[in-house]
């Protein structure tokens, strides 16, 4: 990866860049970022996900909503959890799913992104689920696809990972209920985290009482407080009275230069251990978008402990992705 921006770089558009997510009748068409959705759409997605959760409990874990539609998982960057939960979500909606791992195929043979897109469109795809290492890739694709195709951002560079943020707020809502009285702390490598950015937007959209970030200066983007967060550099201070702790993965593969002394040092200062967890509220929940680096940002005892909801996040992720897929693809034909 050649160019790395500290702040999300969004392609310039003549009008509001988030407007691209909606069709001319104001229906959700693409999900590229949490920004621009507003509390009504976020709540609607969460409510829809709630009803899809019930499908998981039955004998046939499938509904025929997207029968005959084709969903293409377009992954330019490797991922296991996100790709499989998107795949499972699409299959539970009865869609056909095609998994394309582009990093190992056409891109390395020199085919351009647009050529790849045109070829897959020619296969009559209805939805692209896109993960790409470059910020803005999903926007770019959404601007260039055929009008009937929906695009879901499954992570673009450091910019956004909206479905992860939605499943996180869904999980918080299920356990804690209302957001207005909550203190949520996001801990660790905020600088490289698209997940953190989307979480901050989602939490603020839902009017969360206080959103905090806790990290060393070197792992925070410049002017991070402008996203609407309170900044802490010390865990003891930052975790005080917190209801929800979201640990971020230390993205060693994205790091350039000396942002960290050593992993041991990071774990000593910011790794979530049972001792540090005790500084938060006694009923605080611990979340992690995965995959967790045990012993780097989170202690195994915490990750597998009673306050951890990490596995609930994964199963909620399927219902949330079903909701987003069906809301983006429904009500399109006329």
């Amino acid at each position, binding site marked *: 990866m050649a160019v790395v921006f500290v702040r999300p770089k969004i392609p310039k558009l003549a009008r509001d860049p988030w407007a691209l997510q909606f069709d001319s009748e104001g229906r959700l068409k693409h999900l590229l970022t949490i920004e621009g959705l507003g509390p009504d759409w976020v709540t609607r997605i969460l409510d829809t996900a709630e009803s899809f959760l019930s499908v998981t409990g*039955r*004998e046939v874990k499938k509904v025929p909503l997207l029968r005959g539609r084709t969903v293409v998982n377009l992954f330019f960057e490797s991922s296991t959890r996100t790709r499989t939960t998107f795949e499972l979500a699409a299959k539970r909606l009865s869609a056909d799913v095609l998994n394309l791992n582009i990093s190992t195929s056409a891109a390395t043979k020199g085919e351009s992104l647009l050529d790849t897109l045109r070829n897959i469109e020619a296969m009559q795809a209805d939805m692209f689920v896109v993960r790409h290492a470059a910020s803005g890739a999903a926007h770019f694709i959404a601007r260039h696809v055929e009008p009937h195709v929906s695009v879901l951002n499954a992570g673009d560079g450091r910019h956004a990972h909206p479905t992860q943020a939605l499943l996180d707020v869904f999980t918080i809502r299920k356990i804690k209920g209302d957001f207005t009285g909550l203190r949520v702390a996001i801990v660790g490598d905020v600088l490289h985290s698209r997940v953190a950015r989307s979480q901050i937007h989602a939490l603020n959209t839902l009017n969360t009482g206080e959103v905090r970030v806790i990290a060393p200066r070197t792992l925070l983007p410049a002017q991070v407080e402008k996203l609407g967060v309170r900044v802490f550099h010390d865990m003891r201070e930052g975790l005080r009275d917190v209801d929800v702790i979201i640990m971020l993965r230390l993205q060693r593969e994205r790091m350039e230069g000396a942002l960290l002394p050593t992993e041991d040092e990071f774990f000593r200062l910011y790794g979530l251990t049972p001792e540090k967890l005790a500084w938060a509220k006694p009923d605080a929940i611990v979340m992690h978008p995965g995959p967790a680096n045990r012993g780097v940002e989170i202690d195994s005892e915490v990750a597998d402990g009673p306050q951890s909801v990490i596995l609930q996040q994964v199963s909620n992720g399927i219902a949330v992705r079903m909701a987003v897929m069906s809301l983006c693809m429904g009500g399109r034909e006329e």
Partner: protein
Amino acid sequence: MPNLDVEALLHRMEQDLSKRIESGALHDPLMVGIHTGGVWVAERLHAALGLTEPLGKLSIAFYRDDFTHIGLHPQVSPSSLPFDVEGRNVILVDDVLYTGRTIRAAMNELFDFGRPASVVLAVLCDRPGRELPIQADLAGETFMLDQHEQIVLHGPSPLTLTIEQRASEE
């Protein structure tokens, strides 16, 4: 003038159902209502017949055949069938039977929960105009309406029926 007295229609349905249950034609049935009006009707019948197993509720939002035209309903209340339908006799209850599309969707969903031994369709209001080969086994009343009219059940308490002018199609 058709009978719009919900209590009388419910009574007629209850009589019909209890006759079937007593004769053994409908052995040990389960009752399933279709959201929202069908659940109201089913709740009343369920109580009147003294069925012991809980009432099932089907929400057909994920099974509708017009999803590609109108999308998802904003507030989908999840289906709940708190029993095993496998091998059981099921009374499927709805408020109004018209085109038959809701019943088709409901039966598709019902079969995703298991394979019932039989399904009986009981509706409060039967209205000719079927688009599918689906008929009610018993109905509270049959209503002959003009195209621009519709019959609407209001509830849950009290239950009332009104015949209304349909909002013009966009």
